[in-house]
């Protein structure tokens, strides 16, 4: 019996202690008419070896194509030590640290994580994670509505250059709470938010303005100007950032004159593999004054009975298990194991290492753009500074090109034509530090063949 340790003698002794004649007796309180007759749709058990064979064959079927997609999930080198430690049973198979004395490892790590994220984003406090970047933005919008008591509109301005899925998710999650999302247009030549789109709202009651940096197109927004405009108009500012990019770019806590109010994003670039979309983790940092409006778990340092340092879950009066229907969020389980990965990853890379990774991504992307725009029928959509993604325009349908590339072992980018029809046949490409010059050369050569 897989994973069940009972011998026949155990079962007999245990039933005798219970005073039941069979295991079936233990289910006597379930009405007989409801009892499951069979589970015909469930296959028979496989041994570990057989499952291994099956999974290996499924994995082989997917292969390992050369990847040039980013669009919110990025392929980076992860030090071997990261997942070797993350998958230690003591981290992997522990629960949420409710019993603080028996969870000091997880709790101290989370405190270190909070410190790193606060510093990386230039903010004062961090929570211990949310599900992913998209749902973290939804939570940030709800938090802004709670935190900004003077604003009655619950109106959030979001740039069209925000990852479109993040907006979809924010809409879905806040749907029952009457938030209004207004989309700000972008400069067609630059791919960054139009200042005039913003000034159209001057004088209106706006709860918060969202800024994504670098934006979904990979371009860099004028974050100082947008932050200052928002604060001048009594709106809070929510930054959506790639945490890796903050190794080289100004942290949101320093945007504009006062810095932003809430920072969120996806922590995936910090030691989490692409793994088909998850599990990743969402992060959130903010000003100390808003800490009681934050969703999710927060770890604090305190002392024990002997005055010795220890770590514990704190400010739990915000959370669902205490506050129930009045909690700041319904979140309970978060993404602790991925935060474990990120904390070890950041420790191993350090500020200098992250800076070099970020610089290397930018460098390789510049080479990628140079190589691909030499292919006939390929042009660059936007001017201006960018990080590690770029929008290209093709002279033919993007999905056909992508299918042909895939058949040649290249995942060539993210097709923007459905989300941004005004851009025509637009393709979002990305090169991280993982893409060598040879990889880039191979993509350019293959694209030239496909677009002949």
């Amino acid at each position: 019996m897989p994973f069940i340790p009972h011998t026949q003698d155990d079962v007999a002794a245990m039933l005798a202690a219970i005073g039941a004649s069979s295991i079936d007796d233990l289910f006597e309180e379930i009405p007989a008419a409801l009892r499951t007759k069979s589970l015909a749709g469930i296959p028979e058990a496989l041994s570990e070896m057989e499952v291994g064979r099956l999974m290996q064959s499924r994995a082989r079927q997917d292969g390992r194509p050369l990847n040039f997609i980013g669009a919110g999930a990025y392929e980076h080198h992860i030090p071997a030590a990261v997942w070797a430690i993350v998958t230690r049973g003591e981290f992997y198979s522990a629960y949420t640290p409710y019993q603080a004395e028996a969870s000091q490892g997880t709790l101290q790590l989370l405190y270190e994580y909070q410190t790193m994220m606060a510093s990386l984003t230039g903010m004062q406090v961090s929570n211990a994670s949310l599900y992913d970047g998209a749902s973290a933005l939804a939570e940030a919008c709800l938090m802004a509505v709670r935190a900004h008591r003077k604003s009655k509109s619950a109106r959030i301005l979001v740039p069209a250059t925000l990852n479109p899925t993040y907006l979809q998710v924010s809409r879905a999650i806040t749907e029952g709470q009457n938030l209004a999302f207004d989309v700000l247009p972008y400069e067609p030549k630059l791919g960054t938010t139009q200042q005039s789109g913003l000034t159209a709202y001057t004088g209106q009651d706006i709860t918060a303005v969202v800024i994504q940096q670098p934006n979904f197109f990979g371009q860099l927004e004028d974050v100082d100007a947008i932050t200052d405009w928002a604060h001048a108009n009594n709106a809070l500012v929510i930054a959506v950032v790639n945490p890796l990019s903050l190794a080289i770019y100004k942290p949101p806590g320093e945007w504009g004159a006062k810095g932003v109010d809430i920072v969120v994003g996806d922590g995936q670039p910090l030691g989490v593999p692409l793994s088909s979309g998850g599990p990743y983790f969402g992060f959130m940092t903010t000003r100390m004054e808003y800490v009681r409006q934050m969703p999710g778990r927060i770890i604090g340092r305190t002392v024990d009975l002997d005055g010795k340092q220890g770590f514990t879950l704190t400010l739990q009066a915000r959370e669902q298990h205490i506050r129930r229907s009045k909690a700041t969020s319904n979140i309970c389980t978060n993404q602790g194991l991925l935060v474990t990965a990120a904390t070890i990853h950041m420790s191993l890379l350090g500020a200098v290492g992250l800076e070099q990774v970020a610089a290397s991504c930018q460098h390789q992307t510049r080479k990628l753009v140079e190589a691909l725009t030499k292919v006939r029928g390929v042009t660059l959509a936007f001017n201006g500074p960018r990080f590690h993604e770029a929008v290209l325009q093709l002279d033919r349908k993007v999905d056909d090109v992508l299918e042909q590339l895939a058949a040649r072992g290249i995942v060539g980018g993210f097709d923007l034509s459905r989300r941004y029809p005004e851009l025509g046949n637009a393709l979002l490409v990305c090169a991280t530090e993982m893409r060598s010059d040879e990889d880039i050369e191979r993509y350019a050569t293959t694209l030239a063949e496909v677009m002949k």
Partner: protein
Amino acid sequence: MQSRALIFDHSRTGRSASAQHPHDVKADVPSHLQRKRRPALPEVSELQAVRHYTRLSQLNFSIDTHFYPLGSCTMKYNPRASNQFAMLPEFLGRHPLGPASVGQGFLACMYELQEMLKEVTGMKGVSLTPMAGAQGEFAGVAMIRAYHRARGDLARTEIIVPDAAHGTNPATATMCGCTVVEIPSLPDGDIDLEALKQAVGPKTAGIMLTNPSTLGVFERRIQEVARIVHEAGGLLYYDGANLNAILGKVRPGDMGFDVIHMNLHKTFSTPHGGGGPGSGAVGVNQRLLPFMPIPVVGRDGDRYRWLDERDLPQTIGRLSAFMGNAGVLLRAYVYMRMLGRAGMQRVAEFSALNANYLLARLKQAGFDAAYPGRRASHEFIITLKRQARDLNVTAMDFAKRLLDYGFHAPTTYFPLLVPECLLIEPTETEAKEDLDAFVEAMIAIQREAEQDAPKVKGAPYTLPVRRLDDVRAAKQLDLTYQSAAERGPS
């Protein structure tokens, strides 16, 4: 303050794990967008980081190291195979937005997982995208709302929740814009049907139920509950927190539930990871099929593909940037394939056997069951009301002392309506001798409580820290480390 080193204490300016750095190139950043001061990340060697985090890990209790009978959390063995096969390089390297043509192997696993979950729950459709139980609850209540709205039934905004429910249930209802109506439980642990009849009406959107309930007993009149709610025009939501208790024995769909979420990190044994990741897949019956969260895996002939808003125009939408916690789903898939049909039924059988055995032994040892006349499900509640009154030793004191005996504490003070409670869930993967050792520890602590109560109240003594000052933690907030330089002159 005597203290264990933080990673920052190992940091020295100029030190690095340079094998992890790519070749040095300069970033090209316009000066107004540049970072001027480096973030305060530690500067440590690779060995220092590895040793620090390995040592931290050793401060934890975990399933792999300790019996962990945390009620409502289903802390059973997480097979290593699930981890290994989910971390095959092809799965780890796959970009979520890659074309379906290079993801057929992965999608086949997801499609089959959907099918297996439908079969064990008796539902008609499954969406794997919710990233934890609470997000599954959100999806469920949002679908109930969408269903009523699509019928023009706009007044249905009340969600009924029993008083014993998890805190996530009322929090979710609020998040979905609903109001919460709480109904009481009877002394035997079942729902008060008279109160339910009073509570339902034209404003009822639905009811959220866990069955077996958080009181550790099966709601015997579930068919009657379903009839009352359905006749009033409401829908039934099944909180899958306790699905382990009934896997293969009775299906939520057959009990009359319209929508459910499953905690794959409980019932299907994916790791809890010190607080996550989870996975809160949702299942629906026929009438809620159009509202499922996207994406869902569909099959055209022998090809798999993602279904999105073009296939499900009435969907409640997307809940994650991609498709949920894919790696968790792969682990659940591997686990289910290793259990197979018969193994799935054994989950409920042996978790019930272990729970009822542990309950019988503890009762025999003189402990008070909260619901003595009832069968335990996969978990049960002991109340230490008597010990608290007579000996001034509380459930928390017992819990902390258990840590010294090498057992993770059961869930304490939940559900809130049972005073001084321990909610104990042994799970099916524990051997009889470990259950026996737990009983012996409880008996020993009871004896200590009678002879030397301060000893129990001062526990734990053998862990990295003793009881922590939670009041200080909340009043003197210390949420991030600051170096002496950052703190400035004191």
